[in-house]
């Protein structure tokens, strides 16, 4: 497992140490450790069943871990009930109180903290202004659009200045356009308030847009924690390489410094210091292929798709290797059945 640059910066506001949780025979969390710095937005990215939601529930207090510790700002909160944790959370389907107005929804956490009437009015007004919902105070949740409901949920989660903000796949129910707007808005708000935030998603694109750092989870364990570019350019293993972005993953052995021998006998020139004899994985991103690259692949186009800015080509290469290649969409779409040659430079290949 690699740890990216962001980890050391600032103080660790949230510290998760060796958290384990099983449900019967299913290991949901296999001794997970991570830290989130003050003001950082960390995304936990993983497929469904990877344990990311369980981890969030442990942080929020809805699940008690079998082992491990959760510390916020130096205080151990592992045994605290949710109500005592001072954590703002936006749920997947927002979980707004359907019988309460927008104003009463946002005022709820303040009322629970016995804040005075005038102060509540002021802070609710501020929070609603922040999510651009001033004037909607009297509406009921069902009278709002999905995006507006989301904003109310967000306002409700931040109005009491929580130590931590948790976002559980909050954009899943929104259409694409709205989702993008909301993503940027959440990011802007999070930065402005300096909120330490954990964001849960299975959408790798969303993770790349929003995060300072990403923790990729699979089978209850963290596969890699790193900055967004690090995760994309230098994934730690097959799973991360495959889950984030499109990829061509090959396996081979270092036959000499800077040379990987593939099982079919081919040799690839790579930019790697791995010792000869080491078993390595090789990642080639589809968009890194270009005509004239040093490592050449020749193959027949099996499938060609026009995607606006790029052509997406599936090549069947000699030796049975399949390659996914993206090329800038210039000129006519290459026809299936034609044979082309593409190349990739050693620096564009990631070895892990």
């Amino acid at each position: 497992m690699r740890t990216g640059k962001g980890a050391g910066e600032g103080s660790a506001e949230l510290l998760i140490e060796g958290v384990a949780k099983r449900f019967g025979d299913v290991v949901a969390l296999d001794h997970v450790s991570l830290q989130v710095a003050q003001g950082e937005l960390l995304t936990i990215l993983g497929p469904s069943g990877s344990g990311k939601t369980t981890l969030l529930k442990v942080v929020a207090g809805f699940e008690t871990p079998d082992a491990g510790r959760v510390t916020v700002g130096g205080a151990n909160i592992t045994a605290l009930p949710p109500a005592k944790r001072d954590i703002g959370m936006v749920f997947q389907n927002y979980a707004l109180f359907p019988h309460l107005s927008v104003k009463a929804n946002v005022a709820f956490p303040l009322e629970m903290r016995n804040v005075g009437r005038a102060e509540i009015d002021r802070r609710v007004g501020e929070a609603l202004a922040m999510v651009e919902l001033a004037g909607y105070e009297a509406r009921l949740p069902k009278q709002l659009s999905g995006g507006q409901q989301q904003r109310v949920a967000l306002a409700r989660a931040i109005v009491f200045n929580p130590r931590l903000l948790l976002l559980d796949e909050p954009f899943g129910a929104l259409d694409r356009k709205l989702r993008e707007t909301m993503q940027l808005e959440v990011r802007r708000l999070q930065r402005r308030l300096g909120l330490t935030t954990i964001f849960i998603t299975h959408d790798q694109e969303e993770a790349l847009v929003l995060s300072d750092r990403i923790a990729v989870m699979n089978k209850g364990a963290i596969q890699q924690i790193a900055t967004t570019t690090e995760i994309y350019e230098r994934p730690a293993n097959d799973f991360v390489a495959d889950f984030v972005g499109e990829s061509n993953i090959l396996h081979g052995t270092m036959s000499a410094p800077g040379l990987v021998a593939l099982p079919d006998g081919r040799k690839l020139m790579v930019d790697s210091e791995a010792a000869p004899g080491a078993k390595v994985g090789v990642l080639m991103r589809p968009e890194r292929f270009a005509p004239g690259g040093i490592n050449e692949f020749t193959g027949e186009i099996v499938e060609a798709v026009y995607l606006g800015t790029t052509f997406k080509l599936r090549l069947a290469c000699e030796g049975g290797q399949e390659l996914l290649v993206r090329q800038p969409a210039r000129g006519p779409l290459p026809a299936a059945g034609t044979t082309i040659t593409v190349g990739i430079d050693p620096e564009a290949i990631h070895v892990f």
Partner: protein
Amino acid sequence: MTTRAAWPALPALILLLVFFLFPVVRMLGFSVEAGTLDWYAKALGEGLYLRVFWNTFEIALLVTLFCLLLGYPLGFLMATTTPGWATFGFICVLLPLWTSVLVRTYAWMVLLGRNGVLNRTLMESGLTTDPLPLLHNFTGVLIGMVHVLLPYMVLPIYGAVRRVDPAIPAAAAGLGASSARIFWRIYLPLTLNGIFAGSVLVFVLSLGFFITPALLGGGRVMMIAVLIEQQVRETLNWPFAAALSAVLLVFTFAVYAVAQRFTQSEATR
């Protein structure tokens, strides 16, 4: 609203028409057979009968209240516990419902009598010296009716609690609400419709309840249905019985209509 054919409902409609509506109308006819409203004047004018109506109303109200106090926690627990316990709860609630009211009422007589199980246990354990008067009085009727009607309160409440998305109370907890506040601010308002439905059901059923008050009241607790039966069977005064029935029917409809209005305004809000 719908243009679907109504004919599949026809057999049931005919059945109701012939064997329910017709006898009811025929029976109500007895009350005005003499061509006057004298029997109604008697039912609504004489203190004795007004007392019975008031008694019925009072008992129905108390039964509803006690059913609510017992039924809400039960329905709530059943809706929020593990599936295993929920099934156990269902068996406990439904088993009595499938048992004859007569059997259950006699069972209460065995339990509540002067030498009944309860009194003997109490006296043997030294908690009381004399048997408590639990049977053939108001208390006995109340206990029996609450028991018989409890399922009608529990089930709508169970349904209402089940319809609350579990993320909502979880969100409230996360926002700092204690269990008590989650109940008062979240569960209670979100399950009002279940409370309302259960209460109307129990109240309306209580108004016309016969077997339990007749047996456990031992003739000393007069509810309207018991009075009607007396008029039919003992004094053979069918017109008066019909007039009493009509008043009960109108009152029940009135309760139902008011309830309907409430639920509708709730739904369109």
